[in-house]
């Protein structure tokens, strides 16, 4: 393994930390609050001012939603207020520990995805979440008039399906990225024996910081070190990548937000179902903006990591494959953790 100079090594570590903080923080917080059963010692997570403020805003917005829907029954203009509140609520809500942004960010990091695609995926998954919420309430409450118990049973089933899908999706990523990582490891080990010409050319690329998505030939291939089990990054970012992106959207977007379900049922009972639907989509828009922001930050952080590690012979590629493998592992861990109850997601509305 090529040794990194201390500063660069430090910087790379720092970029890595920034990268995984999104996911890691969410895991830690979530782990601290599960399982639910049984009396437990009082929780003492040390979070404060800014988070407290976030929570207070969210609660306020959410509480105002029901009052505004009531007001809209007699005063149509209150619908605009409802939409504004829902939008703000969506923005703040997505800043919570939802698994959605963690999965999307990890996916983007695991693959050679662009920030633009991160934005598109964030909006698509938020849109799908809104659609599912509307579908659940439209079919369950409006068409079939089932009880809340039945509806939350459906919610739970969807939830389990969603977590299972995340786990499968993560397992697939791990399989692909694990292969690439192992190949990079092997390439790294053979490094000293190989002629340096190809690598120098590569270094050149990196120092100039060009967009590597299009011409980033990998050491894995340069070194002819056998077969990478996964597609090369540029293949992933190609047309087929959208199909994989769609899988990410599906796994995340299939689980509706509990808040949206409550709002929709409430709006339906007030005879203002359409207002509830509008509020749900605007909420989704707000959520998408927050998730997209976090996704872009994740992509940016990976980019920084790539630049910092890129100048090194072999080691750079190894670090990048390692990061991707790690991110893929996180998706799998998330899915499994959610599925087996080690990670608490937002609860369903069953009470």
């Amino acid at each position, binding site marked *: 393994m090529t040794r990194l100079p201390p500063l*660069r090594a430090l*910087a790379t570590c*720092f*970029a890595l*930390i*920034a990268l995984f*903080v*999104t996911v890691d*923080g*969410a895991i830690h*917080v979530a782990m601290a*609050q599960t399982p*639910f*059963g049984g*009396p*437990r010692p*009082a*929780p*003492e*997570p*040390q*979070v*404060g*001012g*800014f*988070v*407290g*403020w*976030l*929570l207070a805003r*969210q*609660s306020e917005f*959410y*509480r105002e939603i*029901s009052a505004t829907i009531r007001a809209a029954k007699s005063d149509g203009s209150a619908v605009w207020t409802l939409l504004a509140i829902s939008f703000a609520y969506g923005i703040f809500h997505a*800043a*919570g*520990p939802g698994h959605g942004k963690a999965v999307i960010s990890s996916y983007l990091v695991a693959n050679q995805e662009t920030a633009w695609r991160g934005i598109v995926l964030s909006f698509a998954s938020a849109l799908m979440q809104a659609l599912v919420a509307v579908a659940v309430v439209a079919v369950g409450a409006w068409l079939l008039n*089932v*009880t*809340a*118990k*039945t*509806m939350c049973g459906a919610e739970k089933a969807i939830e389990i399906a969603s977590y299972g899908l995340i786990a499968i999706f993560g397992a697939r990523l791990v399989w692909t990225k694990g292969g690439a990582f192992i190949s990079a490891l092997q390439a790294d080990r053979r490094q000293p024996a190989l002629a340096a010409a190809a690598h120098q050319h590569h270094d050149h690329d990196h120092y100039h910081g060009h967009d590597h998505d299009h011409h980033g030939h990998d050491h894995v291939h340069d070194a002819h070190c056998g077969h990478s089990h996964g597609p090369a990054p540029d293949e992933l970012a190609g047309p087929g990548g959208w199909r994989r992106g769609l899988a990410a959207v599906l796994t995340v977007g299939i689980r509706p937000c*509990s*808040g949206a*379900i*409550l709002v929709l*049922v*409430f709006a339906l*009972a007030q005879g203002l179902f359409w207002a509830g639907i509008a509020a749900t989509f605007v909420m989704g828009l707000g959520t998408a903006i*927050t998730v997209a922001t*976090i996704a872009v*930050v994740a992509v940016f952080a990976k980019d*920084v990591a790539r*630049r910092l590690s890129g100048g090194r012979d072999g080691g750079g590629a190894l670090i990048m494959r390692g990061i991707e493998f790690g991110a893929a592992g996180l998706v799998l861990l998330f899915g499994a953790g959610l599925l087996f109850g080690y990670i608490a997601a*937002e*609860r369903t*509305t069953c*009470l």
Partner: protein
Amino acid sequence: VALALRRLALLLPLLLGATVAQAHPHVWISAVSELLYAPDGTLTGVRHAWTFDDMFSTYALQGIETRQKGVYTREELAPLAQTNAESLKEFAYFTFAKADGTKQRFEDPVDYFLDYNNSQLTLHFTLPAKTPFKAKQLVLDVFDRTYFIDFQMADKDPVRLVGAPEGCKMQLQRPNDGSASAQALNEQTFASGGANANFGMMFANKITVDCP
């Protein structure tokens, strides 16, 4: 590199702040609790009356058939009350007791029913203590540690001691409502991701009963 580092350093607290944020409540409960004592001064159980906010009440009433529209009798609400009583078990009824520092457990609820007034449902139920106990100091916490439900003890007469030995004194410590931390917000807490206050205490209702 230095520039990139500085940029990352600026981003970190933002990321941390965004990810450490916890769930926020979707359900609000206004609670009245009675502590039930036997003549010999042992605590036999806790009787709660939990009033849900109107949005959750409406949600819970979805699909329940009634003879008269908008009027729900105790009988019509009985299946829902049973569902509530059963599903609350998973959360230990959000009721956590300690007698002189020792944890106490509760049996499944009895005498539970729902009533509906002013668009709000109220769930009444009694939690019998698994083993009735005596305590010089009883601490009863009522809260949801995942903060999906926001518990507030009622403004008026929130806790009653029923048949408590003479000289017992009750004290209620209400949760901070978040506005306190909003006021505490300043540049510094923002920059540090706000890693100082104790989140858990923000939403716990702590009932303390000291008996001679």
